[in-house]
C-alpha cells in the first residue's frame, strides 16, 4: 500500500507540473506496417480487431488517457477510413474526453519512420511524447518513467532522446513475443542502454567490448525483459528520423543511435517495471495470450466487465472462475463454462457444451455438444452442433457447420463457411480472399490501380472453392503458410509467429549473400560452378518445355547463365548436350528401356535443335559435341544402341555435320570402351553408309580405303583385348 500510495502522490505531482508546463502528447501508430495478421487484416485493420470484444485501439487509448495524455495523434494508413469512423463514434471523440484525439491519415506511410518524419514535418509535438502502436494493451503507470525521463533531460541537456518501457518477465513466459526477444546491456545506475539486440533465436551473442569500458562500473545484461512497445520520446526523435531517412522501425532507430552515440551524443534509456501489464499484439500467438491474460484479469482495471469504452450494452457481469456474461446470453441445459470464458451479448449456446479459456463475441449462435478450448470467436459467428475448436480464431460472420473439428492454430477469416464433417489440420488459414489475389493486391498498394483490383477480383470469382479443403458446403480458400515468405524480411509469413528463422542472418540479407558469394569464389570455383550451371541449364530447359518458351529466349537465358557462372563456350556445349541427353532419365528415371529412351529423346532433340545450332558452329564445336555424346553413352552402357539413333537424328536436324561425324569416328578411341562403342554394329553401319554416300558424291576413294583399313586394325586390336 505504501508504495502504491507513494506512487500515486508522485503521479499527482507530475500531473500538476504538466498543467503548469505543457500537456502530455502521444503519437499512436494505428498501423502495424507488416502482414502478420494478413488474411484477417485484409478486411479490417489490425487496430480494430476485437480483443475481449473491444477493439485493440481502445485499449491503447485508454492506456494513454489513464496516464494523463491530453493530446493524441492517431496515424492511420491501411483502411484509415474504418479507423476514423470507429474513433469518431467512440468516447474518445466526445467533447468531454480529457484526451483530445487528432486523426491523421495518409496512404503514404510505409513504416514507423515515415510517420515520425511526418510528425516532424508537421511540427506536431512540442515536448516529450509517448510513442505507442495501436495494438498495445497495457495498464502500466508510466508517470514514473516519464518523470525519470524529464529529470534526465533536465540534468544533461537533451542527451537522452528516448526511454523505452520494458516489463520484467522471465524467459518462457507465455506473453513474451519471440519476435521481440531482446538482449539488452545497460548501465545499472543510469539505466542507459549500451547494447540492444534482438535475439532471433540466436545461440551465440556478441557484445562489443567498448561498451563495458567507459561509464560506470556496474552493468546489467538482461534477457528477462518483455518489450511493451511503449516509448517516451523527446521531440528530437522525430528530427532524428528525418535526418536519417533509412530508419524504418524503432529497432533501426535504437541501433542507429547506439552506433552513432560517440558522434551525435544521444543516449537511450530503459525503464523496467515490475508492476502493471504491457504487451503488444504482434501476432496471433500474442493475440491468444494477451486475450487470455485479459480474461484472467492481468490488465485490471481494463477488464471486460469494466466497460471502459463506455458503450451502450457492452457491459457484462463477472462471476466465479472468470466467467463473463454479456446481456441476453442464453446457455443450454448441461452446458459448462469452465473457466476464463467471456461471452458477448445476445449470444446463445446450446446444450452440453464445454467452453473453457475462450472469448465469444456478440450475436453468436453455438449448437449442441460443442467443445471450445482457447477459441477466439468474434461477432456473428454461427457454430453448428458437434463442433470442436481448439486454439483458433474465428472471425466475424464465419459459419462452422456440423461435426467440424478445428485443430490448433486455425484461422477462419471473415465470412468463411467450413464443413460439414471436416477436420482442419493444424495451422490452416481459410479466407474468402484467394491467396494469389493477395500478391496482385500488394502491387496495387503501390500503384493504386483500380483496374487491376477489379481484374483480380474477377479472377477470384472464377476460381471454385475446393470441397476437399473446406467441406462440401464450404466457402473459402486455404492459405498456405509458405505463401509469401518473400514478403517479410525476417520471418516466413506466419500468423501465429511460431516459426522462427533459425538462421542468424536476419540483420542484413545483403551481407549474408555477399558472404556466400565470397565463399564460393574462394573455394575452387570450377567444380561448383559447372555443377550449378548444369542444374540451371536443366531447370531452364525444363521450364522452356513446360511453358513453351521460344528457343531464342532459352539461348538468351543460357548465355546469361554462362556469364553468371563464368563458363567457357566449350563447356556450355558439352553441358548442354549432356543435359539434353540425360533429360529422359531425369524425367522418367534410369530404368528406361532403350526404346523408351529414344522415343522420348528424339522429339526433344527436334524441339531444341535451334539451341544446339546456336552453339555448334565451328568444326571444333561439332567434335566437342560428339565427344560429349560419346562420354554420356559410355556411362550409360545399356543404352549404347541408342547412340546411333541420336547421331542420326542430330545429323538429320543438321545439328551435326557429316564430316564431323566421320572425323570423330576416325579419331577418338582414346580407351577400350570408346573403341567398343565405335565397334557397335549400328554405329559402324551408319557411319559406313554415311561415308559411302559421301564417297558417291565426293568420289573420295582414298579416304574410304583408309577408313576401312584402320577399322580393320581396330577390330583386330579389340579381339586381342
Amino acid at each position, binding site marked *: *500500500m*505504501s508504495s*502504491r*500510495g507513494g506512487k*500515486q502522490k508522485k503521479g499527482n505531482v507530475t500531473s500538476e507540473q504538466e498543467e503548469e508546463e*505543457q*500537456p502530455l*502528447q502521444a503519437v499512436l501508430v494505428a498501423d502495424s506496417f507488416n502482414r502478420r495478421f494478413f488474411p484477417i487484416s485484409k478486411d479490417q485493420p489490425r487496430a480494430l480487431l476485437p480483443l475481449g470484444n473491444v477493439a485493440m485501439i481502445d485499449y491503447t487509448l485508454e492506456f494513454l*488517457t*489513464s496516464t494523463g495524455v*491530453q*493530446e493524441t495523434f492517431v496515424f492511420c494508413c491501411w483502411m484509415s477510413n474504418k479507423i476514423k469512423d470507429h474513433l469518431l463514434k467512440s468516447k474518445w471523440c*466526445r*467533447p*468531454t*474526453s*480529457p484526451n*483530445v484525439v487528432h486523426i491523421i491519415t495518409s496512404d503514404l506511410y510505409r513504416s514507423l519512420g515515415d510517420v515520425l518524419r511526418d510528425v516532424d514535418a508537421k511540427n506536431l509535438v512540442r515536448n516529450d511524447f509517448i510513442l505507442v502502436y495501436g495494438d498495445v494493451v497495457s*495498464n502500466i503507470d508510466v508517470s514514473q518513467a516519464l518523470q525519470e525521463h524529464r529529470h534526465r533531460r533536465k540534468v544533461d541537456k537533451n542527451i537522452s532522446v528516448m526511454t523505452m518501457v520494458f*516489463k*520484467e*518477465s*522471465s*524467459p*518462457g*513466459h*507465455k506473453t513474451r513475443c519471440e519476435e521481440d526477444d531482446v538482449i539488452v546491456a545497460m548501465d545499472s545506475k543510469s539505466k542507459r542502454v549500451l547494447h540492444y539486440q534482438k535475439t532471433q533465436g540466436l545461440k551465440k551473442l556478441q557484445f562489443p567490448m567498448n561498451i563495458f569500458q567507459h561509464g560506470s562500473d556496474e552493468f546489467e545484461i538482461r534477457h*528477462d525483459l518483455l518489450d511493451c512497445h511503449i516509448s517516451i520520446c523527446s521531440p528530437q526523435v522525430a528530427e532524428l528520423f528525418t535526418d536519417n531517412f533509412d530508419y524504418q522501425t524503432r529497432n533501426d532507430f535504437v541501433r542507429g543511435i547506439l552506433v552513432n552515440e560517440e558522434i551525435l551524443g544521444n543516449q537511450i534509456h530503459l525503464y523496467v517495471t*515490475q*508492476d*502493471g*501489464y504491457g504487451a503488444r499484439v504482434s501476432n496471433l500467438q500474442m493475440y491468444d*495470450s494477451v486475450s487470455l491474460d485479459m480474461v*484472467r*484479469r*492481468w*490488465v*485490471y*482495471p481494463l477488464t471486460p466487465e*469494466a*466497460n*471502459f469504452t*463506455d458503450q451502450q450494452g457492452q*457491459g457484462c*457481469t*463477472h*462471476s*466465479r*472462475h*472468470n466467467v463473463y456474461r454479456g446481456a441476453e446470453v442464453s446457455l443450454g441445459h448441461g452446458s459448462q463454462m469452465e*473457466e*476464463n470464458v467471456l461471452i458477448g451479448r445476445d449470444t446463445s449456446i446450446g446444450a452440453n457444451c464445454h467452453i473453457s479459456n475462450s472469448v465469444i463475441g456478440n450475436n453468436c449462435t453455438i449448437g449442441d455438444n460443442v467443445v471450445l478450448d482457447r477459441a477466439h470467436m468474434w461477432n456473428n459467428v454461427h457454430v453448428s452442433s458437434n463442433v470442436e475448436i481448439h486454439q483458433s480464431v474465428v472471425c466475424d460472420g464465419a459459419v462452422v457447420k456440423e461435426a467440424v473439428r478445428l485443430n490448433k492454430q486455425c484461422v477462419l477469416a471473415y465470412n468463411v463457411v467450413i464443413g460439414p464433417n471436416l477436420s482442419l489440420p493444424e495451422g490452416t488459414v481459410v479466407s474468402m480472399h484467394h491467396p494469389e489475389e493477395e500478391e496482385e493486391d500488394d502491387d496495387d498498394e503501390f500503384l493504386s490501380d483500380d483496374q487491376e483490383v477489379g481484374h483480380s477480383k474477377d479472377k477470384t470469382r472464377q476460381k471454385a472453392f475446393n470441397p476437399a479443403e473446406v467441406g462440401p458446403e464450404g466457402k473459402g480458400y486455404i492459405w498456405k503458410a509458405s505463401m509469401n515468405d518473400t514478403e517479410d524480411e525476417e520471418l516466413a509469413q506466419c500468423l501465429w509467429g511460431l516459426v522462427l528463422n533459425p538462421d542468424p542472418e536476419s540483420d542484413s540479407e545483403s551481407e549474408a549473400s555477399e558472404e556466400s558469394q565470397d565463399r564460393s569464389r574462394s573455394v575452387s570455383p570450377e567444380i561448383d560452378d559447372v555443377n550449378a550451371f548444369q542444374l540451371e541449364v536443366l531447370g531452364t530447359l525444363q521450364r522452356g518445355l513446360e511453358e513453351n518458351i521460344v528457343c531464342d529466349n532459352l539461348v538468351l537465358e543460357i548465355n546469361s547463365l554462362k556469364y553468371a557462372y563464368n563458363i567457357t563456350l566449350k563447356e556450355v556445349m558439352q553441358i548442354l548436350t549432356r543435359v539434353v541427353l540425360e533429360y529422359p532419365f531425369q524425367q522418367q528415371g534410369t530404368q528406361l528401356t532403350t526404346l523408351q529412351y529414344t522415343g522420348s529423346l528424339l522429339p526433344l532433340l527436334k524441339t531444341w535443335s535451334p539451341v544446339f545450332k546456336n552453339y555448334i558452329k565451328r568444326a571444333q564445336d561439332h567434335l566437342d559435341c560428339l565427344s560429349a555424346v560419346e562420354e554420356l553413352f559410355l556411362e550409360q552402357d545399356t543404352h549404347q544402341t541408342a547412340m546411333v539413333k541420336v547421331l542420326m537424328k542430330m545429323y538429320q536436324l543438321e545439328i551435326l555435320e557429316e564430316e564431323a561425324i566421320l572425323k570423330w569416328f576416325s579419331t577418338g578411341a582414346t580407351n577400350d570402351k570408346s573403341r567398343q562403342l565405335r565397334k557397335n554394329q549400328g554405329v559402324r553401319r551408319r557411319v559406313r553408309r554415311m561415308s559411302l554416300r559421301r564417297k558417291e558424291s565426293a568420289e573420295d576413294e582414298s579416304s574410304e580405303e583408309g577408313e576401312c583399313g584402320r577399322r580393320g586394325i581396330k577390330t583386330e586390336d579389340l579381339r586381342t583385348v
Partner: protein
Amino acid sequence: MGSAIEAKTHKNMPGADKEADLTERIEAFLADLKRGGCGTGPIRGSGETARETTALLRKVTAQARWSSAGDLMEIIRKEGRRMTAAQPSETTVGNMVLRVLKIIREEYARSRGSSEETDQQESLHKLLTSGGLSEENFRQHFVHLKANVIEAINELLTELEGTTDNIAMQALEHIHSNEVIMTVGRSRTVEAFLKDAARKRKFHVIVAECAPFCQGHEMATNLSKASIETTVIADAAIFAVMSRVNKVIIGTQTVLANGGLRAVNGTHTVALAARHHSTPLIVCAPMFKLSPQFPNEEDTFHKFVSPHEVLPFTEGEILSKVNVHCPVFDYVPPELITLFISNIGGNAPSYIYRLMSELYHPEDHDL
C-alpha cells in the same frame, strides 16, 4: 495545446457552458472510479469518495436544469446509475446517491408543509396507506426547494467530515488498559480509533498483515509512530494468537443490509477465530458504509484484481499452466459480529435494518 483548449471552449456555446463543465466533471469522476482501486481497494479512502460523490451531486443539483423535485430526482438517479455501474464494488457512491434522494424527498415534503408525513413509517398500517406521496406529487414547483436541498446536502457533507472523529471519540468506552487488541489490514477509521484511545490508555495491538497486499505493514508503522505497542503477524498465525487477544477491532468496506460485512479478505478468518475463542469482534463503520445491498447479489459482490500480487508476472512459464485469482473482499456473516461502532453510536448487527430504513427511502433501494 493552447489551440486545443481554445477549440474546446469554442465548441461550447456560452449558455451551455455550465452544463458542459458539469458533464466534464462527471465524466472525470466516472473515469476516476473506473481506474480507481488498483488492487488495494480504493486509492482514496471511502470517506473521501463519499464526500466527492456528495459534492458532485450538490453540483448537479445546483447546475442541472430542473423545475421540480421529480425532475431532479430523475437526473440524480440517472447519474447515480452511471456512477454505481462504473465501480460496482464501491458501494459508498450508491449510498450517497440514496442519501441525496432521501434529502430531496424530505425537503419536498417539508415544502409542502406535511413534515409529519416524512417521518419514518411508524407502523405497518401507515406503510400500507402511505402510497399518497407518489411520483406525480413531486411535480409541484417550489421556489426555495433548490436552496433547501443544497443546504441539506451541505449538512450531509459536514456530517461526513466528522464521521471518523465521531467514531474515534467512542474509543475510550471500548478499549481498556493493558488489553490486547487484534486488527487486520489497514483501516483509517480503526487507525484513528486506536490512536485516540492511545492518548489515555496503554494497550497492545496485534496486526495481521493481510496478504497479498500487506496493508497491515503500513498500519503497524502508523500505529507504532503513535507510540502504540504493535506486533505484526502473518495471516496464518491469526488463530494461534487469538487466545491472547481481548478484543478484535476491524474496519470494513461495506456494511450489508443483513448486518454482514464485505471487508478486506482475511477478515472472515479473524472473525471465525474470534468466535472460536469467544473474543468480542467490534466493527468500526461510519454510517455512509451502510448499503442496502444483500450478500446474495453475486455479480457486484466480488472484486477480483490482477493476480500480480499473488503470483508475479515475472514468474514465467508457470503462469500459463495455472489459474491465479486475487479476490479483494471477504464476506463476514452477521452472527460473527458483536458490535458495530458508527458515528451515531454502537449498534448490534440485528439493528442494521432499522438504521437502513432511517437513512434511505425504501422506494430508492433500486436506482
